[in-house]
Structures are given as C-alpha cells and as structure tokens.
C-alpha cells in the first residue's frame, strides 16, 4: 500500500517535472526566435531608428547580439534545470 502511494506520487511528480521543463523550453525558444528571426531579420525595419555604431540595432542583433543572447539562454536553462532536478528529487 505504502509502496503504491509513493509510486503514484513519483508519477505525479514526474508529470510536474516534465511540464515545468516544457514551460521553460517554450519560454527559452520564444526568446531564441525573437532575437534571431525577429530582431535580426523580420523586425529589423522596426528597429531601424535605433543607431548602433554606423548602422542599426537589427544589424547588431544579426551579427553579434543574437549570439550573446543564445549563450545567456543556454546557461540560464542549465542552471534552472539542474535546480529543478533537485526540487523534484530526480538528479543523479
């Protein structure tokens, strides 16, 4: 009986863990797409008014800004997930 309860709890936690992970992935990927496809390409005309070193912000995002955001995203995700692993007790 006790064994069964712990099993259902583990299953429920497993679902919660996966949902939290998916939420984090979706948020991160929205930012990922926004800085590259968004600011770097499609939304560039909107940012044309903001000058950066002889050109506009969209050019900066396309050549450097997006890369810096990608880096931040990966480290944020790794940090957040490793914390999530411990919260749900699923770490190695």
């Amino acid at each position, binding site marked *: 009986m006790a064994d069964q309860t712990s099993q259902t709890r583990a299953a429920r936690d*497993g679902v919660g*863990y*996966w949902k939290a*992970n998916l939420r984090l*992935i979706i948020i*991160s*990927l929205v930012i*990922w797409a926004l800085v*590259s*496809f968004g600011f*770097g*390409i*499609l939304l*560039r005309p909107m940012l044309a008014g903001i000058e*950066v*070193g*002889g*050109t*506009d912000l969209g*050019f*900066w995002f*396309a*050549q*450097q800004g*997006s*890369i*810096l955001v*990608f*880096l931040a*995203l*990966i*480290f944020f*995700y*790794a940090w957040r*997930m*490793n914390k999530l*692993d411990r919260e749900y*007790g*699923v*770490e*190695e």
Partner: protein
Amino acid sequence: MDQFTINLLFVGGSFALYIGIAIWARAGSTSEFYAAGRGVHPVTNGMATAADWMSAASFISMAGLIAFTGYDNSTFLMGWTGGYVLLALLLAPYLRKFGKFTVSEFIGDRFYSQTARLVAVICLIVASVTYVIGQMTGVGVAFGRFLEVSNTTGLLIGACVVFAYAVFGGMKGVTYTQVAQYCVLITAYTIPAVFISLQLTGTPIPALGLFSETAATGGEGSVYLLTKLDQIVTDLGFASYTEAHKDNLNMVLFTLSLMIGTAGLPHVIMRFFTVPKVSDARWSAGWTLIFIALLYLTAPAVGAMARLNITELMWPNGTNGDAVSVETIETDPTYDWMLTWQKTGLLDWEDKNGDGLIQYYNDGSEAMAEKAAANGWEGNELTNFNRDILVLANPEIANLPGWVIGLVAAGGLAAALSTAAGLLLAISSAVSHDLVKGAINPNISEKGELLSARIAMAVAIVVATWLGLNPPGFAAQTVALAFGLAAASIFPALMMGIFSTRVNNVGAVCGMLAGLIFTLLYIFLHKGWFFVAGTNSFPDTVDGSLFGIQSTAIGAVGALINFGVAYAVSMSTKDTPQEIKDLVESVRVPSGAGAAVDH
C-alpha cells in the same frame, strides 16, 4: 627567413604537437575509440567540441562570405550558433541519459526497428560525406597556399594528411588533440583580427572595432567603419554592406536550416555522449558555445575590415582617383600577397582595357555602366577573388608580420583537420558499429570492427576528395548543404523520439526518408546530380529555383516534411508498445543514468 619557411615551421610545429598527443593517448579498446571512456570534463569537452565544430567553413570560409555580401550573410553567424540552443534544450541531456554510443543506436532503440536504425545510418553518412567535401575544399585552399602549389595539388596532399591523421587515434586521441587544435585556431583567428582592428579603429577588440569609428585620416574627421565601408562599396557599384538585399523567406529558412542541422549532426551530438552526467551535458553545450562565440563574434569584424582593406588597396587614391597599376602590384611589396595567391589559381586579374591599371568595380551594376564608359573601363579587372582565400590572405593584405601569416596557416589547417577527423570518425563508427556489427555480422570481432571502421574512413575520404576537386560551392556553402540534409533527416527523428511517445517505428522511418529524399532531390536539381556541374535542372538562384527557395535553405522545409509525415503516418498506424513509452519516460528524467552500455 622567407615566408615559406615560416609557414612550414608553424604548420609543421602544430602538426607535431597533434600527432604527439595522438600517440600519447592512443585508443585501445573499441569503447575508447568511440567515446573516450566518458571521463571528459564539460569545459574540456566544450573546447574539443568547439574545435570539432569550427571547421574550414567557420575558419577559412565564413568571414569571406560575409565580407563580400555583408548583412545578408549574417545568417551563417546566427544559424551556426543558434543551433546550440536547440541542442542544449531539446537533445543533449536526453541523449546522454539514454546512454548509448551513437545517434543511430538511439533511433534504432527508440523506434524499436532495425530499419529505422539503418535509415538513420544512411542519413548520417549522406550528411557527413557532404560535410567532408566542404572541408576538403578548405584543406585544398590552405595547403595550396602554404605549400605554394595549385589548389588541386594542395587538395590531394591534404587528403593524405587528413586520412593518416584520422586513422591514428579514435575519439580519445582526438579529444585531447582537439583541445590543442582549439587553442591554435582561436589564437590564429584572433591575433590578426586584433592587429587589423587596431590599425583601422584603434580598438583592440575586433568585435567592438566593427561598430567603432575609424582612426581619423587626413583631417576628414572620424566616421564609423561601417558607414565608410558602405560608402566605398556603393561608390564602386556593389550592394551596400549593411542593408538587406535578400528576401526574408530565404534568410529565415537558411538560418533555420543551419540551426536545426547543427542539432542533427552526428559528430557534434556524439560529443554529448561523452560527458559524465546529464547535468554536465546541459553545461557542455553552453561551454561549447562560449568557445565558438569567441570566433563568431570576431568573424563579422574580420569580414568587414578585410573588405575595406582590399577595396582601399585596389583604389589607393580613393574611389574617384586612379586604380592601382599593374606595375605596382608586381613590384610593391604591399601587393606581394596577390602574386603568391595567384599561384593557387584562386586569385587573378587582367588589364582588359590595357590602361596599365586594374579597376575593381561591379560591372553588373547599371549605375556603374555610365562611369565605366566615360573612363574607358571594359569590365571588372580583378577577375577572380575566391571567397575562401580571404581569411588566410587577410594578414598578408593588412601587411602583418610573417609569423602571424604562418600562425593563420596553421590555424586554418587545424580547423579543417579537426573537423574532417571528427566526421571521418562519425562515418566510420556509423559503418562499422551500426551497419556491419548492428546489421550484417553481429558476431564480428573487435579487431574486425576496427578494421571495417578504417576501411570506411578510407572510402569516405576518397569520395570527398574526388567531389572536392569540383565542389558545389565555397567551403561554407557546401557545408551548409550538409546541414540542410542533417536538419531534414536526423533532427526531427531525435526530437520526436524524446518529446512524443506516440510517434512509432513506421512513422519515424517514413519521416526520415521523406525529409532526406525531398532535400537531396531539391539540392541535386539545383546543384547538379551528385554535385556534378551542368546536370542541374534549375539555376541555383532565388528567382530561378523551383519554389523560390535556394538549395542551401531547403533543409528547414525538409525538416517540416519529416515532422508532418512522421506524425501523420504514426497516427494512422499502431501505437507504440508500453516498453517504448517507459523508455521515453525514463529518458526524460536524469536520475538513474549509468555509464553507457554497448550492445
């Protein structure tokens, strides 16, 4: 000491270092040959992956493509870094948890099908061989220059070196050698960029120099580097550097293809099997991208500054003055680089109108036609400037000291060699481990497996060299095709394998085949069958192409087809068995990950 001797010293010295490390860490068992016994720290792994990843395409070719196109080729920068986000979030931790040696093993087990595994192996081989063709192009350019021979001879010598080198050790030799290679290549890329940035803008950090003002010349007052560059290139009838000239659809699809392809290439994914823990797999992707970003943030600066330097060298008196004279090119030491590169056949000029000057301008531009007629110009006289030589020629163009030139030659070869070796390893393990041991002869001895791995390497390099003699594009463009193929075939299967419990064996096989065949056909229709020039049915331009999409950007569409077909077929066939659902659940949580087990 002349330049040839200096180059030889730098290239020879760096090779001695790599070979020394390879001997020191010679692979013994098959498990070490593939995955280095899983004892690699995330930072070390990140550095090695970065070296593995940054190939001739990144080092030799990319800045040249950016230099001559400007903003439009930012797609390479975003595409080849953005893929790491996908890798870190969607694949790496789960594949590490799964704990097998190769990508196709995961696909075979998850989709409980030998057919799925075989199809995955075929996809990997097609993408990897295309990738190696691009590397061989870069190897040819680098060897051609530093041995001062023709491009073709350089390519043949390079092929022998790459083969000898890859056969020497497995992953373990390669992991530590690649750390050394990373150090060589990043130093080689950064040092000339710093020098040039200081010369042009007074800023020691090239990434910042790109957006800085140029060091004031002749009381004109200072002007931004990019503004100046835009001015000079448009004066000569070329498209402006910072504006967009390509349609959004192609830019987005091309970037997406490179991103998805990054997360679907076997030699990169394999790296994440070799870290000790799932949490390390997450960090590893980040470390890899840091080491990659060091080069990628510098690359656009290298491109823009080189373009400015070249244009000013061709027009020493300004774009309204006289162009450089043939006599100056032949006698002035500042132009020596043009004479040495002419020997490789990758750079050439011709005084078409016989005025003793070499006019470099865009003869396709209507606006220039009038000016050309008024001045008696009869077409662009800098007749050939291969994009792939730009980075290697860059220190010579900027008149930097001889040792910098030698260092760059060593760096370019390090980049091409490390990736070619990593890819050959991925190809050989796919053939020997998945094809021979997994399907043809499961009882093969360890010795037989190693032998078949080496035969596969030899065949792959012969094919790649043969195709590399007449490549379908500049190094980075050929490599982009390989990414499209990986994007359309492998990535969707891996992602669905982790994020869906519903996609089954039949669905995955149909999806991969649909994605691969569609993409391959589209590429062949535009680039020629098996990349043989002249056999294409459509011109490889945006306007002439079949769907208005360039062949380099089609991988993203192939990936969508793969997802769609796999899902539709899965929904109309039998659900996955319970043990597969359990397997997927277990891959999703890190706990319980052991060391990888061999089949």
